[in-house]
C-alpha cells in the first residue's frame, strides 16, 4: 500500500498553483512572501516524492539545501519589507512603485 509517486506530484502541483494564485492576487507583500514559501514547499514535496521513488537520498539532500536558502531568503526579504515600510509606511505591493519615488 505504498503511495505512488504521481500522488506526490499531484499534491505538489496543486500547492504550487495555490502559491501562484496567492502571489498574483494578493496585495500584502507579507502574504506574497508566505505564498512563495508555500511554493518552495511544493517543490520540496516533489523532491521528496522522487527521492522515495528512486530510493536515493540525493532528493532529500536538495530539500535540505532548499530549506537553508529559504531561511536566508526570509531573513533578508523580511528585512527589506521592514526597510520599505519605514520609507513608505505601506505593505501593499501596488503602492511600492519605487521607480516613481
Amino acid at each position, binding site marked *: *500500500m*505504498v*503511495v505512488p*509517486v504521481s*500522488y*506526490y*506530484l499531484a*499534491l505538489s*502541483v*496543486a*500547492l*504550487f*498553483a*495555490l*502559491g*501562484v*494564485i*496567492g502571489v*498574483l*492576487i494578493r*496585495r*500584502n507583500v*507579507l*502574504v506574497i*512572501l*508566505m*505564498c512563495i*514559501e*508555500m511554493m518552495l*514547499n511544493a517543490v520540496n*514535496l516533489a523532491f*521528496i*516524492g522522487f*527521492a*522515495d*521513488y*528512486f*530510493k536515493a*537520498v*540525493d532528493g*532529500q*539532500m536538495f*530539500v*535540505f*539545501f532548499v*530549506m537553508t536558502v*529559504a*531561511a*536566508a531568503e*526570509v*531573513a*533578508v526579504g523580511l*528585512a527589506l*519589507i*521592514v*526597510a520599505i515600510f*519605514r520609507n513608505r509606511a505601506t505593505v*501593499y505591493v*501596488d*503602492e511600492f512603485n519605487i521607480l516613481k519615488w
Partner: protein
Amino acid sequence: MQIIFFILAGVALVTGGLVVFQRHPLRSALWLIVNFFAVAGIYLLAHAEFIAAIQVIVYAGAIMVLFLFVIMLLNLREPEAEAKFMHLGQKVGGIILAVFTVLLLIYGVMQVVLPPGKAAPPGLGNTESIARLLFTDYLLPFEVTSVLLLVAIVGAVVLAKSKLK
C-alpha cells in the same frame, strides 16, 4: 497508508487555500503553520524522517516566528484593504494564469516516462545516510551554505539596523 496521505493532503490543500484567500495576514500566517505540519507528515510517509523533523523545526518553528514578529512589528491589524489602483481584472487574470500554470505543469509531468522504482536499500532516509552524503559528495555545497548564511546575517542587519540609531 494512502488514507493517511489523502487526509494529510486534504489538510495541506485546505489550509493552503485559507492562507491565500484569508484577508488577515496574521491568520494567513497561522494557517501556513498548519500547512507546514501537514507537509511534514507527508514527508514522514515518504520515508524522510529527518527532513520531516527539519521541516517542523525550521519552517514551523523559526521562519513562521519571524513572520509573526514582522506582522506584529508592522502592526497590521486591519484586513487587507481593497486596492486603489488595481482593478478586479487582476484577480481574475491571476487565477486564470495560475490555472494555466497548472495545466502546463501537468502537461510537463505527463511527458516524463519514469523508470520503474528500485527495491529499498536498508535504512534509507534516516539521519545517518543523509549525513554520509552531506559530508562526502555534498561537501562543497555544505561549506558554501555557511557563506550564504553569513551574507544573510550581514544583509539583514544592515537593512534592519541602518535607521535604528
